[in-house]
């Protein structure tokens, strides 16, 4: 793993130029693209995640690193083995019916994408029925619901209940967030997880994915 240390350092430092140079150089020297990905880039994103938790790195840097990571994966793609798995999981994301707030939801989108999730954003003011049909067609691992108003957080429960009625509640993990939402409210309505801010969304999603894989 030590052979990819300069790739890791370049990504952690968000140094675009150096990362491109190092990736190209390492490929031309005959390293396997899968090894670069698995032993260079992904461990670097893990370090970045830890540094964000500890407060050393900030959201704009995590997002920049994610963009650079995506660019590096594009460079590697022709060399990657068939079926190389690069997605951390599938997430369906939206703001519930009656609520048009999207800043927090959009931040969660970026954070999840930066953590390697495949994310589909169904937007704002989304009726429970739409979430049901989207879950059926997109088949996410996680459904992430947002509500910002005390008047719209009941729609979180309505949406979860609608999934139950449709018989697909157990096909997804559900995470909820938004200013008036709390852990106890999330427990009350039968959600699987609660994120207090966008910064904790990707950690929560990873935790839920670990639960899925454990079962």
């Amino acid at each position, binding site marked *: 793993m030590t052979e990819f240390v300069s790739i890791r350092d370049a990504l952690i430092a968000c140094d675009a130029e150096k990362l491109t140079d190092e990736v190209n150089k390492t490929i031309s020297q005959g390293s396997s693209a899968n090894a670069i990905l698995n032993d260079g880039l992904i461990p670097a994103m893990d370090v970045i995640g830890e540094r964000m938790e500890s407060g050393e790195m900030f959201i*704009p840097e995590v*997002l920049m690193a994610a963009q650079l990571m995506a660019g590096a994966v594009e460079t590697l793609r022709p060399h990657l083995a068939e079926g190389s798995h690069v997605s951390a999981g599938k997430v369906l994301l939206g703001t519930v019916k009656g609520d048009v707030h999207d800043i927090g939801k959009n931040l969660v989108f*970026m954070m999840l994408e930066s953590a390697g999730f495949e994310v589909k954003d169904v937007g704002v003011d989304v009726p429970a029925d739409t979430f049901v049909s989207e879950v059926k067609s997109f088949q996410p691992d996680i459904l992430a619901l947002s509500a910002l108003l005390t008047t719209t957080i009941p729609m979180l429960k309505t949406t979860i209940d609608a999934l139950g009625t449709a018989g697909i509640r157990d096909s997804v993990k559900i995470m909820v967030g938004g200013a008036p939402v*709390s852990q106890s409210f999330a427990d009350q309505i039968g959600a699987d997880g609660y994120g*207090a801010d966008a910064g904790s969304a990707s950690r929560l999603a990873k935790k839920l994915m670990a639960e899925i894989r454990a079962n």
Partner: protein
Amino acid sequence: MKPHVQFLSREEIGRIHQASLGILKDVGMRFPAEEALDFFRSAGAEIVNGDVVRVPEDLVERAIAAVPKRNDVVLYGRDEKHDVDFKGHKPSLSCMTMATSVIDPHSGKKRPASNDDLVRLTRIADKLEYVGVNGGLVTPQEVPGATNDWYTWATTIKNTTKHITGGVYGYRGVRDAIEMGSLAVGSKEAFLKRPFISGWVLTVPPLGCDTASTEAMIEMNRHGIPIMLSSGPILGTTSPVTIAGCLAQAHAEILGCLVLSQLVNPGAPVVYTSFARGMNMRTSNISMGGPEFAVLKVAMSQLGLSLDLPIRMPSMLRDSKVLDAQAGFETGMVGTLTSFMADIMDSMQLDTDMVVDYPDLLFCNDCMAFIRHGLRELVVDDHTLALEPIAQVGPGGNFLSHQHTFKNFRTELWHSDLFDHDNWERWESKGKKDIRTAAMDKVHALIEAPVEPLLSPDVEAAIDSIVERADADGAGEE
């Protein structure tokens, strides 16, 4: 533009300055020290009633011309990375000196300060980013009273490489402090080239100086040691109760000393400061946290700036006894207002200037980080207008992942180490700490970390022997 706060117009500054010149010329100022009187007499000043000097205007004008201006003054650190200059305006903290008590960081109880406290506090101040000038935050109470300045010099010199301001008693106090400083840098010659210490000169209002302070000042001037020159009258007690009268008298006292400093050694560095303050008229307790204190500090800063001098003000002292909401408001109001105009802010003491609470050092440091960030020049140019990013992101987009945000957020936004900016859940998960508790955790980490000596054991022993010699000689006694 860079923001400013002003209580005095240009005309009012001129009027106060003229009033101060008149006070010096017509009323005069006491300098009960033979050498001082000799300097004034030789310069042509009239001396009445034995030791009251009537200072003519032309002497003041010559002194103002001779004293080094902001661009030319440096408060040297023992390590040059800690040099403090006054070319721009970047306010920083200094250790207010001579508190007598600490809040014990383990028991939480107030007790007399010890030399061990001084070691720890000097070390913490040495590490804090926004402390520009170190000094004896506390005076050890277990050492002989007459020589406690000597102990304070020895301990601070051994425990910081930043510039140090301290109290100096008479000629001997200055000479011994110079000797200790010279030991720390290897020679007197090296020390005098970059003197890393400065000393207080506090007038005795109204319109006087005491003998030991006058002699200490003369000795510092002679060696080019910067003086922190303060007049600190008390409204309605040692000056008129009206702010303008207090300003005129305090400015006059500073000018009187300034004249002497430049007669002793033209070009001797002077930092303009003032402890002018109010008093609780119910109890006679001194106040350094009230609104009139803020006004006095800003106005005195304006008077000092009108002479193009570096400005130091004791504006982050708090009347509050504990690090509570009152202390926070006093820090925010007096500290912020003065920081618009002054360069160095004496801080990190509570109960006006009597008590040091360890976590307050980290609190004040973060307050200064906040203030420094808030008082920056607001730059309006192509880069900061960011028209290109605005067009690129477009309606409904998001700047968070834009290169412009990535490149600039660390400098544009303030990221506190101490102030809580989390949501409730995150704050709760981190232990629901108020700011004193959060700061106290950092204090424990700092005081439990291993301490590397900054000087060799031989040099430390030689510095200590100067203190022992002072004790043996009965230095510091009248």
